[in-house]
């Protein structure tokens, strides 16, 4: 008798666990919202506004983005057919360079965003893939439509592509990297990325 109630208790526990896991997994929009709110709170934090705190602020923003972005997947998709030919060391180096490139390109835009309003418009889930449509309303009342494309990894949803104004980031880099590699070589692409990293 006691054994039975233990079993029943345990199975209810499992059931609740299962349901909560389901609920958690089914919300890509919430994941995007969490990360966006986190970044906006860092940007708006008066204690970090001081110019001397800029590196600290950037580091915090970067770590918030790292949690939500699947850099490896983005780098893989951007290199496309050239990814398979890379050695594991090259892949690792490339992921690093790629995420730094995106950081340098978009960090100032994130830092300048005064966060008037963020509208979460629509979410479409299709199996392990989801698209979350977001509209960033800027101070001048201009809207910047951004689509996040996410993929389910375990229980988490991670971003693998971002479309800004309808232009896909991965597609843009895939074209650029592809033309650099076919015109010269992969080594040259890495050299270019490194040079860009040192410019700053």
């Amino acid at each position, binding site marked *: 008798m006691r054994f039975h109630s233990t079993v029943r208790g345990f199975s209810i526990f499992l059931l609740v666990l299962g349901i909560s896991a389901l609920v958690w997994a089914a919300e890509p929009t919430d994941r995007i919202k969490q990360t966006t709110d986190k970044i906006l709170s860092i940007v708006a934090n008066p204690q970090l506004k001081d110019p001397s705190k800029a590196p600290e602020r950037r580091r915090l923003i970067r770590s918030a983005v790292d949690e939500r972005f699947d850099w490896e997947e983005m780098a*893989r*998709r951007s*290199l*496309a*057919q*050239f*990814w*398979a030919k890379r050695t594991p060391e090259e892949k690792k180096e490339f992921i690093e360079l790629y995420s730094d490139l995106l950081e340098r390109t978009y960090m100032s835009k994130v830092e300048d965003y005064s966060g008037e309003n963020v509208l979460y418009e629509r979410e479409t889930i*299709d199996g392990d*893939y989801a698209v979350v449509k977001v509209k960033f309303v800027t101070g*001048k009342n*201009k809207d910047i439509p951004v689509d996040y*494309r996410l993929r389910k990894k375990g229980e988490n949803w991670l971003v693998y*592509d971002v*479309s800004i*104004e*309808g*232009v*896909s980031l*991965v*597609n843009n880099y*895939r*074209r650029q990297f*592809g033309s650099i590699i076919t015109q010269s070589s992969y080594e040259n692409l890495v050299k270019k990325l490194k040079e860009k990293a040192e410019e700053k």
Partner: protein
Amino acid sequence: MKRFNLELAVGLFIIAGIVCLGYLSVRLGKMEILGERGYEVYAFFSNTGGLKAGAPVEIAGVDVGRVKNINLENYQARVALNLPSNLKIQEDAIVSIRTRGLVGEKYIEITPGGSENVVRPGQRIRETQGSVDLEELISKFVFGKI
């Protein structure tokens, strides 16, 4: 007897002419008569920007196929593409609608991916990029500076 030969020759000539005309119209109209060659895949777009059926599909600027048809499904455009059967499209390939020049015709460009999985006939290519409205972008740029 001689007269009969002449009539026969004219008749044959006319028939040959009609066959040539038929061949020409099939070729120029890019019609498929002897069944479809290649295979079909589809993709969803939020905005096709006026893409027409029959528009070319290109990879690296090379014409590889045609837009077979465009339908509205759940207020999204479902674009079916006809591709040659020896052409493999990776699962993470991106299909985008592009414009030749500033005001030119619309066409489809596929940027190949790196995935080992291939899109099979009748399947959907997930990654798409709709038509970018240049006029809207320019006006945003122009009026954004107030």
